[in-house]
């Protein structure tokens, strides 16, 4: 083996080692770890510090972590805690008002954010009925998490579930009526 071969083998080895290091960093993310505590207030303090220390790109993961921690100690009070955390995120410029509303309402409100739009139902909702219902179904599982498992708001969750069924029925009828005029 000559010296040129040895050099190219060494280069390949260095590249592989470099790639392995990068991928290891990406999976462990030592700079932005998840909160380890099971206490929601402490976890929120931890997340706030992390978000203010350059981890704002991990907002989604942190929000998910906080929901998981809150599931361990479900209570109606949690709604307010999450609302205040989202308002704080808005004040810090981490989220826009719309984003904060989306994060809150998707999990803690009976109404569906997937059922929004500025145009009438015949022209906007009916052509996309299946997609709207699919999105609502996914949102309903988020509401199950937020309303039922985090906030213990059974009444709210069952109302959301019924609202989904009512929307399904009413949209079916309304869209049939809209289509009949064409």
């Amino acid at each position, binding site marked *: 083996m000559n010296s040129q071969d040895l050099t190219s083998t060494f280069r390949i080895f260095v590249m592989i080692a470099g790639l392995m290091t990068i991928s290891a960093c990406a999976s462990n993310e030592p700079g932005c770890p998840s909160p380890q505590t099971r206490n929601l207030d402490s976890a929120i303090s931890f997340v706030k510090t992390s978000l203010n220390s350059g981890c704002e790109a991990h907002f989604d993961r942190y929000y998910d972590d906080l929901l998981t921690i809150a599931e361990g100690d479900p209570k109606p009070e949690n709604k307010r805690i999450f609302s205040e955390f989202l308002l704080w995120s808005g004040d810090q410029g981490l989220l826009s008002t719309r984003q904060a509303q989306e994060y809150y309402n998707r999990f803690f409100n009976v109404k569906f954010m997937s059922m929004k739009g500025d145009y009438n*139902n015949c022209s906007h909702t009916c052509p996309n009925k299946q997609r709207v219902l699919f999105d609502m179904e996914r949102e309903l599982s988020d509401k199950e998490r937020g309303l039922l498992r985090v906030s213990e708001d059974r009444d709210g969750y069952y109302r959301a579930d019924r609202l989904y069924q009512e929307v399904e029925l009413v949209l079916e009828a309304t869209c049939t009526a809209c289509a009949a005029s064409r």
Partner: protein
Amino acid sequence: MNNKRPLAIAADPARRQATLGLLLAGTLLIFAQSVLANTPTIRLFPTTVVEDLKQTGNVARDMETGLQEVIGRLDQQQQLYVESKCDGAENDAGCQRLARQIGATYLDMLTIMEERLPDMEHTVNNTRISLERGLRNELGKKMTPWQLQETLIGKTATSTPAQSSPTLRGRSGMRLSERFRQYYQLVATSGSQSDQSLAVLASDIYLDMEETSVLIERTRQEIARATLMEQLNQSFGIITPEMMEVVGGVKTILFGDEDARALVAGPPPGSVEQAYRSPLEQ
């Protein structure tokens, strides 16, 4: 001579300002009250729909009354046919006579249906068209998806009582006339119901009318075909399995399916207590 007194508010600027403020507040209050009083409610049930539902219920009852006797007779004849061990003995003269009698009763049933169905079709279509117009205009064209959602959920999302829901999903197991009678009662008393209940009720009835309309149309086409077939069969004294199937189908539609039970949504479990409202809530 000019007896008119200058307006008191013109004398003192401070008083004038206060009076104008009061006037403005009063005007705003009156305006707000009139806006609240005139809050548009969705118009999904014009009086014609109420009348059409009543009429459809009457036509359905007449049809049931007319058919009940014929179907009862058919059942008896079929029982006699089975008890006489005619299955597999079709060439027996007595069995052929019984089969012709059954066929004739079957023709009677088809004739009664043929006579009554056009009225039924007419009233069902009228109801369907009226509801269709209402749903398209009130929910389809005048509302955004968010407004529709707000209508369904009511003014306060957390305090909607479950018992106000008039949902009638799962309509089998009920006589046709009973079904329309229930619809009529719900619609006739719709003034006392909230918009969210009306939207669900109108959708439910409309989809049912749509289904019934298609079913009637198909049945009318089938009756013409079945009548011709049975007239041919009369000469041979044959009971076809299709004949029994049609009779079974008519019984289910008109008198309900004994196995099925109407599903009515129950109240959601859990407490009504709900205090916190986030400023982010929409």
